[in-house]
């Protein structure tokens, strides 16, 4: 997350010759990218009012109000689309956005620093936090369960972990 902005998609270039664009969505439900419109570029200078037209191979054909021609669409090729963090709907207890968890400090129950959250993964057996150890390139995988992670304090920017034996 950069300055409260989250990358939710990217423009792949023009689609056809009538000003439509090829858009790739990074959202959990790909169609949701439309709900976060208006989107911005990384620097926030450009604003895009996005409307999905139809699904195509590897993404969506979309229209952006500000883009009328194929040349304009081609000029936007590679542009990443950002939404504001505040646009995401609030979640129930014990559910968190990956983007909120990434970067949090991980402390053990004694207050000793274990590292920072590098990524959140899910391989089908529950979510896993990848914790980057301090002053090291080593990462440790911590199950994101109530037993292993009893406290998530987003306001304070930290996670209290009670990792199983043999992890750290």
């Amino acid at each position: 997350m950069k300055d409260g902005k989250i990358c939710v998609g990217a423009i792949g270039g023009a689609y056809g010759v009538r000003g439509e664009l090829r858009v790739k969505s990074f959202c959990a439900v790909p169609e949701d990218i439309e709900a976060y419109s208006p989107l911005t570029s990384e620097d926030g200078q450009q604003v895009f009012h996005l409307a999905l037209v139809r699904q195509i191979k590897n993404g969506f054909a979309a229209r952006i109000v500000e883009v009328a021609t194929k040349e304009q669409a081609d000029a936007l090729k590679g542009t990443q689309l950002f939404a504001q963090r505040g646009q995401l709907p609030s979640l129930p207890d014990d559910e968190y956005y990956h983007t909120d968890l990434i970067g949090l400090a991980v402390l053990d129950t004694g207050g000793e620093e274990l590292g920072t959250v590098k990524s959140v993964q899910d391989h089908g057996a529950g979510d896993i936090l990848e914790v980057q150890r301090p002053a090291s390139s080593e990462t440790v995988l911590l199950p994101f369960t109530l037993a292993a992670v009893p406290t998530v304090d987003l306001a304070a920017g930290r996670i209290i972990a009670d990792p199983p034996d043999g992890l750290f």
Partner: protein
Amino acid sequence: MSRSVWKGPFVDSYVLKKAEASRESGRNEVIKIWSRRSTILPQFVGLTFGVYNGHKHIPVNISEDMIGQKFGEYSPTRTYYGHAADKKAKRK
């Protein structure tokens, strides 16, 4: 051809021993295993296995709906990070 039913599910014997020892000790630990080919049995439910993916041990919490699958299915050998975007994680 699928495995004959009369043989029962395949499990490496050391996995059974480690799981039994862990259950008896009652300790909260990750059971490190290298056997990706072993079948998940009902007696493994509730335990956490660290399944080797050729690089590191991926923690796998065993739940009832995983019975009959292989450990390796939950420990991918290639990692794709992708974008966080609006993806959610739930603490269970």
